[in-house]
């Protein structure tokens, strides 16, 4: 079965701007990969439980006490834009 992906829609969901050239290339490559995913149909999966993690660990808690972390300057040290001790982002509201 040949798969068709709406590549520009997927790219928008992924917050990636694609050139037309990239879109054509990725669409073809991913269609081939998705064709291969058909092998998942080769076994009966009904009633099989899901595995999200190989090790059964649930609900990991710690004491609700503050621990040392990065201080403000360290947390901001790699920010491409910052102002007044805060991350500077693009305008969200006009």
């Amino acid at each position: 079965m040949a798969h068709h992906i709406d590549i520009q829609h997927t790219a928008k969901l992924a917050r990636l701007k694609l050139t037309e050239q990239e879109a054509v290339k990725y669409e073809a490559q991913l269609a081939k990969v998705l064709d291969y995913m058909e092998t998942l149909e080769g076994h009966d999966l009904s009633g099989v439980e899901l595995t999200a993690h190989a090790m059964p660990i649930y609900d990991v808690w710690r004491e609700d006490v503050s621990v040392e972390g990065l201080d403000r300057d360290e947390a901001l040290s790699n920010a491409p834009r910052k102002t007044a001790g805060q991350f500077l982002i693009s305008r969200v509201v006009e």
Partner: protein
Amino acid sequence: MSLAAQSIASLRKQLLSKEITPTDIVKDVLTSIEKQDPSLKAYLSVDAERALADAAKADISKPLGGIPIGIKDNINVKGAPCTCASKFLAENYTAPYNATCVNQLHAAGALSLGRLNMDEFAMGSSTENSAFFASRNPWDTERVPGGSSGGSASAVGGDIAIAALGSDTGGSIRQPSAFCGCVGIKPTYGRVSRFGLVAFASSLDQIGPITKTVEDAALVLNHLCGKDGRDSTSLDAAVPDFTSGLGQDIKGLRFGLPKEYLVDGVDARIRSAVDAAITHIQGLGGIVEEISLPHTDVGIATYYVIAPAEASTNLSRFDGVRYGHRAENTKDVLDHYLTTRAEGFGPEVKRRILLGTYVLSSGYYDAYYVKAQKARTLIRKDFDEAFKKVDIVLSPTTPELPFKLGAHSDDPLSVYLADLFTIPANLAGLPGISVPCGFVEDGGTTLPVGLQMVGRALDEVTLLRAAHAYEQSTSWHLKKPR
């Protein structure tokens, strides 16, 4: 033999008997890098001044005292770059903290030396996806060192590092180790804290060592493991002395050979090297029998749904706000994200983000992601059944020999299929090791072959024991590239 070409175990003896100092080792590694790295291209950056300063104050009374260890460039070391071989982090990122495993290594006296090349964000099997340059195989510099921890394996195999850290999501420690003639172990999922490892696929990623010998792998692993409050998936399990099984024989140990792994597409020369290794293991008293892992055929499809799905969510943190690249002159916040990410990520990363986004998107989630999670259960249960009969599962590490640069670049699917033998251990969370098991002549060069052993969850001691018994009764690990 130069110091850079020696094992940790050998260097530690010489340090303790005062024949050498940590500074001697670091200087020798730095000299080797200067000579060899222009052809191997294993390192992305080396801070010689810092390494020499660390060596001068190294405490050799500690278990890894004075031993320099190269770090894959996706593991944070405070004050060092951590580019993940991506343009996104190439400029203006300096790690503000240490990964937990780096803290542990430093506490054991080791020092970090150099940042090692990789496929961008650990996505790939050749280091050709590095945004900077491809690393080379020390056995033939026209060929890839494997990946994604290709810089780590190239440096250790090429004797310009004593040992290195890698990370393994679908084989990224074991496959380059096989390609470069090194030992590489991926521990049980949860053994090593992932805190400070830049996440690719969180349910599959594990940090582990790439070394010259099995003993060295055990020595480093002794200082990587344990429960960490900063990684909720790290296991609260007792950490044994991983050297405790070394030197024991393997009489009566049971090895399983999955019949599903004996597929077409495995290079016949690799097959014959592995067959010889099996005979050798039988000669050491190991019992080898055929087993079945009936869901092997869905391993790659399962992995290439789950890993990109997790990657697409993990990499959403690269938004150009808190760290990394930020596009200039964007017109609004959406454009800021779209353009920043388009400029920052390379082609393979974009491909996997798109694939992951697609399989998680509305209408496709059940068809791909849920099915893959179910298939993952079946793969895990295959191993549960196998380990009722055997202690170790044997296979080649890779179906093919190290390939020439550029050989696979046009067809992502063909690259994905080469992960056949390494992926199942990640999906099932099991420990796996690759050890050298022979050499093959190909196109006028000699290339190493890796034997993979996969063990029970948390039973790295038996795995290392078996790998060590095999290694010590052969001479493959002693052979060096020209």
